[in-house]
């Protein structure tokens, strides 16, 4: 109705009514531009309403990106998006690294492995080459040479280190620690797999908790007695290999590879695992492959029999060599032991150098030549080099030997050494004796000299008259200090003997001391007996001096009944105890006392 009215209006009111005119104009304008205006308002609304705008853009955004990429190549778009994508990734990792890591795991593993294996390949190749050579005839020649020259047989050790055996492989559900699959090499005794798996994951967990809770990295191997357990963890599964011997480090790559394969192949089964291991039956296959990866025998594949024969020969040679070198080592240790026990040689260090034993230390000039000791031990002196600096040994036997060399003791004299004191025993000329007394203290290792058992050989001629005097016993009556009658002759002989001895000794440069000892029998009072015995000795001395004996050389003492010559069981014994006896000693004047 309103529409009709508006449309009719211009016909009547155009001229006379300006306001009516105006109205008509509005109506006209409206008629012309209203639809556009409405459209504009709609567009305006579209632009203002965020939700609508978003909806509109969302319907074309994928096409737009794709179109943009087709038009200008990837670069512009990639450049525009890169900061945002980077920021997004960073934020995602910061928030929780696991989703991204888990998503990337199947991709990242092979990528990392590839770059590592590139680096390793060179090394492995040269390693394999070395191994092949070592099994060839040339290799053996090298080896024998290495053995002969005594070089460290690093190659053998290297080869030895390649021998290993994987005895068991466990596939463990990471979250629960339950065993998913378990394979065992033949003839290996095993324990309950579920217990081992559980305990392994407990230990893993413990290590993770105890050492670095933030870092998801954890224990990747552990030693159990002779065995090593290598552990490889993925997001949902854990591989554990029980290894005897030393596996090469690239075995870890093999494990990683197997784990990635399993992670990928069983990803949903791993995620939904509720304790039923049935879906993992087929996972045994990659585990068995891990088990089979024992020692590599690259050469054996090509020429098994030749390589085997070579190995056998090598084995025999090795055993022979080891046997021989063990024997030599044993002989050498015996030799070293002997050298160490040898007075006058001190071993400071020894070792093997260029196939020869090198022995360093000190040697006394008088000690035996070590090469002689070598020959005695049945060892080749060619194999040894001695580097022994001279020194003076203070070992008793070495000092005695040195003294012997310097003093030239005559026959009948023995030298011995005891902690710095040189004992000289026997009979020698007075010249030699004085030389000993003069020189011995200057010998290295000699602190003092004991010549008390050394006798002047010239005094031997005085032995007969000396013992003649010393065998005499002059006897006295009871309680008296005068000689019993009837001993005048005996006394005269003594007088003559002493005079002669003193005279002849002085001509040999010796001083004579005559000691007279007075005795009494045990009857009477002790004090009186002492006095009586002293008086008896003094009387005899007086008589001798009066008869011409030099007073200075005669000494007396009375011992009473304390040193009876006989046990007093008879009257005759008692009589002999009332006596005076003689003792004669010689002393060289130089030695003073």
């Amino acid at each position: 109705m309103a529409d009709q009215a508006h449309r009719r209006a211009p016909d009547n009111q155009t001229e006379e009514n300006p306001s009516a005119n105006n109205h008509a104009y509005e109506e006209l304008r409206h008629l012309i531009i209203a639809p556009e205006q409405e459209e504009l308002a709609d567009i305006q609304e579209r632009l203002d309403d965020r939700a609508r705008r978003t909806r509109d853009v969302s319907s074309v955004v994928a096409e737009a990106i794709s179109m943009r990429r087709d038009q200008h190549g990837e670069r512009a778009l990639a450049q525009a998006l890169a900061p945002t994508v980077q920021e997004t990734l960073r934020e995602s990792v910061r928030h929780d690294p696991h989703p991204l890591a888990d998503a990337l795991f199947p991709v990242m593993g092979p990528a990392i492995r590839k770059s590592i294996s590139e680096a390793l390949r060179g090394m492995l190749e040269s390693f394999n080459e070395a191994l092949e050579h070592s099994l060839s005839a040339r290799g053996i020649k090298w080896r024998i040479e290495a053995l002969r020259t005594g070089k460290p047989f690093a190659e053998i050790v290297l080869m030895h280190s390649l021998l290993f055996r994987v005895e068991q492989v466990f596939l463990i559900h990471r979250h629960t620690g339950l065993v998913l699959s378990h394979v065992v090499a033949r003839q290996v005794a095993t324990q309950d797999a579920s217990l081992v798996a559980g305990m392994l994951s407990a230990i893993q967990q413990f290590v993770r908790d105890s050492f670095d809770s933030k870092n998801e990295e954890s224990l990747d191997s552990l030693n159990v007695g002779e065995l090593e357990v290598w552990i490889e963890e993925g997001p949902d599964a854990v591989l554990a290999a029980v290894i005897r011997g030393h596996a090469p480090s690239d075995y870890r790559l093999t494990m990683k590879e197997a784990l990635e394969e399993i992670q990928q192949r069983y990803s949903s089964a791993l995620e939904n695992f509720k304790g039923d291991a049935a879906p993992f039956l087929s996972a045994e296959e990659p585990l068995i492959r891990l088990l089979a990866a024992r020692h590599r025998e690259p050469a054996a594949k090509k020429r098994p029999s030749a390589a085997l024969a070579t190995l056998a020969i090598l084995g025999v040679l090795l055993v022979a060599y080891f046997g021989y070198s063990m024997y030599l080592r044993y002989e050498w240790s015996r030799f070293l032991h002997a050298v160490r026990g040898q007075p006058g040689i001190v071993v400071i260090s020894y070792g093997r150098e260029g196939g020869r034993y090198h022995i360093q230390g000190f040697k006394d000039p008088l000690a035996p030549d070590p090469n002689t000791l070598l020959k005695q031990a049945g060892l080749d002196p060619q194999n040894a080099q001695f580097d022994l600096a001279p020194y003076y040994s203070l070992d008793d036997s070495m000092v005695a030997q040195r003294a012997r060399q310097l003093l030239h003791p005559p026959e009948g004299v023995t030298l011995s050494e005891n902690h710095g004191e040189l004992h000289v025993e026997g009979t020698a000329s007075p010249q030699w004796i004085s030389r000993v007394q003069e020189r011995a203290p200057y010998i290295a290792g000699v602190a003092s000299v004991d010549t008390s058992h050394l006798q002047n050989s010239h005094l031997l001629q005085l032995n007969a008259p000396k013992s003649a005097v010393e065998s005499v016993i002059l006897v006295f009556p009871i309680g008296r200090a005068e000689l019993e009658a009837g001993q005048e002759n005996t006394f005269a002989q003594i007088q003559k003997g002493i005079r002669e001895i003193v005279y002849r000794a002085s001509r040999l440069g010796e001083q004579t001391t005559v000691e007279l000892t007075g005795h009494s029998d045990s009857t009477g009072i002790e004090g009186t007996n002492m006095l009586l015995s002293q008086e008896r000795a003094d009387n005899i001395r007086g008589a001798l001096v009066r008869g011409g004996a030099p007073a200075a050389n005669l000494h007396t003492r009375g011992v009473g009944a304390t040193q009876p010559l006989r046990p007093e069981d008879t009257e005759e014994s008692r009589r002999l105890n009332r006596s005076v006896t003689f003792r004669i000693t010689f002393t060289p004047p130089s030695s003073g006392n």
Partner: protein
Amino acid sequence: MLQKKICMLGSFSVGKTSLVRRFVESLFSEAYQTSIGVKVDKKVVHVNNEDVTLVLWDIHGEDVYQKIHMSYLRGMSGYLLVIDGTRRQTLEDALALNQRVMQEVGKVPAILVLNKSDLVDRWEIDSDRESELSAAGWIILRTSAKTGASVEQLFSQLAAATLTE
């Protein structure tokens, strides 16, 4: 065969190890428990015509000196919350521990084990408290690791509960 990881939880000296020791196959020495705080044992039970291997994580009892490694609970299908019936405090401690366990792993089947049932004259848990706990939804079993009473049943019952989950 089905396997289930089960944890033994409770205060120090309530009898967790004794319960396990009575009915399980052991491989590892108990020294592990003091060194890493857990020992893994195994028990096979037969429920619902099926053999179920319970892999039992006997976790060292919590005390003032030693806190439980909560991460040991990861992936468990159920647990036994063991208390010593002659020490009321072990019940309160166990319930507090249970709160933390629920926070860590959510709700999984559990049995409240009142152990040392042979020591009746020293019993400290009154029947009011017990019915209060059953009302709160606890499955409660009185056991004795010493006499063996209800121990087999304990493990079978928990195994059955984990199967219906």
